[in-house]
């Protein structure tokens, strides 16, 4: 039973969709429409990007002394002791679920810090990819040759990213920019495939451990992440998963080759 929605109806559903407030059925109808409608899909991407931009600000940091101040105020208020309450069953369940959430949170925190390129990587790279799609001005170096793109990063990021040339395999380089991911400035390379865009994020690999590709997806985008001893990479695109995987394999081979050459040869690269 395929519900169809019009562009007009869809407009009203964009916010609830982005906020995860649609029913499964509405979400399906929404996604079917968006997949077939360029205008609506642009509107959705805009709202997502705006929301992501705001989220990236994070909270205002809590002043360090505030907790003590609050405790002191509560101490001073001891005269106004609230009526004693017995712990109801509801409440005990609540406390139990609270504790369970803490445990889950702790596990998530561990996974978070030991995972590949770090913090909710897929969410972050997908947002980064959307930002790039929406803001053409982000494409600060407009070039299809790695020789132009690579030196451009000097002084903008604290490392020299490898810029694989994959044009012969059908993934022309479109340009580069910098972005901010996982609390640091990272190099971003943009590739094309037919009308699709692929964003390749390159960041220094703090753990220095080699990692096989992991794949994931969010909001209709696919992502593949891997790392070598020096860099962590994330490729993101609305391209189908198979082709993105193909792209990632090519990029991985190309960067590995570059690494080997760089390690073996004299430091003559410009």
């Amino acid at each position, binding site marked *: 039973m395929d519900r169809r929605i019009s562009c007009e109806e869809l407009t009203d559903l964009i916010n609830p969709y982005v906020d995860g407030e649609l029913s499964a059925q509405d979400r399906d109808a929404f996604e079917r429409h968006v997949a077939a409608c360029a205008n609506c899909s642009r509107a959705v991407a805009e709202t997502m990007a705006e929301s992501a931009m*705001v989220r990236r600000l994070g909270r205002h940091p*809590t002043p360090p002394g505030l907790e003590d101040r609050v405790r002191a105020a509560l101490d001073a208020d001891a005269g106004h002791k609230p009526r004693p309450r017995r712990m109801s069953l509801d409440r005990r369940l609540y406390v139990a679920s609270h504790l369970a959430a803490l445990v889950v949170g702790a596990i998530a925190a561990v996974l978070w810090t030991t995972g590949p390129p770090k913090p909710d990587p897929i969410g972050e790279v997908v947002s980064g990819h959307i930002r790039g799609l929406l803001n053409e001005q982000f494409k600060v170096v407009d070039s299809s040759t790695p020789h132009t793109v690579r030196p451009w990063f000097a002084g903008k990021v604290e490392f020299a990213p490898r810029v694989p040339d994959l044009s012969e395999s059908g993934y022309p380089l479109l340009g580069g920019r910098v972005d901010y991911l996982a609390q640091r400035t990272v190099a971003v390379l943009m590739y094309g495939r037919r009308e699709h865009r692929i964003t390749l994020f390159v960041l220094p690999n703090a753990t220095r451990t080699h990692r096989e590709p992991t794949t994931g997806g969010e909001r209709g985008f696919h992502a593949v992440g891997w790392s070598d001893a020096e860099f962590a990479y994330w490729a993101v695109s609305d391209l189908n998963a198979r082709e993105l995987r193909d792209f990632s394999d090519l990029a991985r081979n190309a960067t590995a080759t570059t690494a080997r050459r760089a390690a073996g040869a004299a430091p003559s690269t410009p």
Partner: protein
Amino acid sequence: MGDRTEFERLFLPHLPAAYNLARWLTRHPADAEDMVQEAYLRAFRAFDRFSGDDGKAWILTIVRNACLTSLKRDSRWRNVVRLDTVDPLELHALVGQANPLGDPEKHLFAKRDGERVRAAIARLPEDLREIIVLREFEELSYAQIARVVDVPVGTVMSRLSRARAHLRELLTEKAEHGQTHKL
């Protein structure tokens, strides 16, 4: 003091959320701290009325009410910005000027971008600003926001939609003054 311990265990974890909301509503760091302290006192006194099912929404409701009461009472806060203590990045936004620190060659893209977004949120009217803060920073559901702001869910949806549209206008307006770099 079992209640005190329980109160702290349930609500101190929400201190960052409480402070962030107060900070966005008062637009002033010291006032935000006062409001949080005030709200936690009120909450503690009303602890026996806490139903136990959504501590975060409950404490944020109290923080919001404390801020709004105070803003209303102290109407000098409404339009007057104290220049001595306000965050300079919010200040230039409040007076509608370009960021004086925004030298694109010296600042990272992300930082510049963040300042721009922060400034735009600060310029939103209060009733839209609080919705953005509760949704984007606190990740409350529409139902939770409805509870905190004390309006129907439908109103939350329409305000959120207006808030995002307004924010987008403020952001694009600013972006037009920004520079594009091409090599």
